[in-house]
């Protein structure tokens, strides 16, 4: 689907829009249903994205263009 091409922020924005829309209470039932399902899926996807991402170590851009780990002292 088109959703996969959206960025995390765009998805988050969509999710927020959906939440806000649903919270106004003015959404027709079927539409609310679809929005609800979509919203839950989005929030799950986004949460997974965040929680599955790996922690990183800071790096330094070497003169040769490579990114190399910073020395431990700097990071501590």
């Amino acid at each position, binding site marked *: 689907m088109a959703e996969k091409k959206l960025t995390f922020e765009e998805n988050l924005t969509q999710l927020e829009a959906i939440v806000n829309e649903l919270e106004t209470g003015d959404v027709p*039932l079927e539409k609310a249903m679809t929005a609800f399902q979509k919203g839950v899926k989005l*929030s799950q996807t986004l949460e997974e994205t965040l929680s599955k991402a790996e922690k990183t170590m800071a790096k330094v851009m070497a003169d040769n263009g490579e990114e190399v780990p910073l020395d431990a002292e700097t990071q501590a």
Partner: protein
Amino acid sequence: MVKPADYLTVTALTQYLKAKFERDPYLDRVYLTGEISNFRLRPNAHQYFSLKDRQAKISAIMFKSAFEKIKFTPEEGMKVLVVGRISLYEATGNYQVYIERMEPDGLGALYQAYEQLKAKLSTEGLFDTSKQQLVRFPKRIAVITSPSGAVIRDIITTTQRRYPIAQLILFPAAVQGDGAADMLVDRLKQVNQQGDFDTIIIGRGGGSIEDLWPFNEERVARAIVASQIPIISSVGHETDTTIADLVADVRAATPTAAAELATPVLTDEVLKLQQQRLRLYQAFSRTLALNKKQLSHLENSYVLKQPQRLYDGYLQNVDQLKRRLVLAQQQRLQVSRQNGQLLQQRLQAQSPTSTLQQAQKAVNETKHRLNRAVEALVRDRRLRASQAMGALDLVSPLKVLGRGFAYVTGDDEHVLRQTADFTIDQPIKLHVHDGLINAHVTAIHKGDE
């Protein structure tokens, strides 16, 4: 002798002296250099202090409005360059310098350059160019700063604490001295060329205006403006405002603040997502509940629950109408029957039977009377006739004949009374009491003869 009236008042003299100060064209704008003395910061107020050098001292006043504009904090003994005017304060009789502008002595040239560049860039509108939005969830953050020192350390620490999944890449750069500006520009270009960064943090720690100067260079400013990647600048202390800070998309007071601006808190975000999911549930539940309530309100209407009430009234109406119909018709028939019977009774009362009987009686009576009347009449007539006939009989001349008489008539029945009535051979008739005799006259004898 000088009369007392010729003595000047203190006020008059002071006013005269003040006028002298005011009118002097040199004292109206004075460029003065000296050390600050007797300075004690009075927050949010006019400042009173002195300027001195080795031989002289002058009172100085800087009004609040002017003092707020200066970019540094005055310190005791600090050499400063000031611009102001000289005037006299009548209440104390002191003359003093009214300072309009003040800057530290010795940095004046840089300061001038800074002001000039700022004015130029401002005219160009560079400060007003729309700031780029920071990426809320950066994957890669480029940090352009010195590899040594607290800046990079603070940024790393803060980022790892908040958002450890972002990749920090340090782009080491000299941040002071000759060549620093060029390096900063190169690094900015490099980061932009590489293109896979979400955010740039550029900065250094605090220092003198000379130390910070590379960040006031036009090249650096333009490189920052030209960056396709949002830039957070954090140069010097909070009180230092460099051109870089002005043109960056966001200015952070400290490196820690810069890292905080650059990254969200990962746990918060996860929590937020969960909360949003909860809000989704709640909102949708409310929608369902609301719809359910509305539906059940409608479904509870008696027209759906007890639809027979829709025609209960009709049932009764029809039943009543039926009763009224039958009753009306029965009454109608009853009245008709009564009317008919009444007339029938009256008709029967008028039956001609009795009339007939009466008529019969009348006819009978009349007939009876008729008969009797006729009988009476005939009887009467007979009586009278009988009497008349009886009387006639009594007077009948024929009774004489009974005694032996006869009378004579001729053929014509005419009575022949005397001889002269007779002729010989004349046929005559002799009438006797019991009959008639025919005879002839044979002789005629007259009586006297």
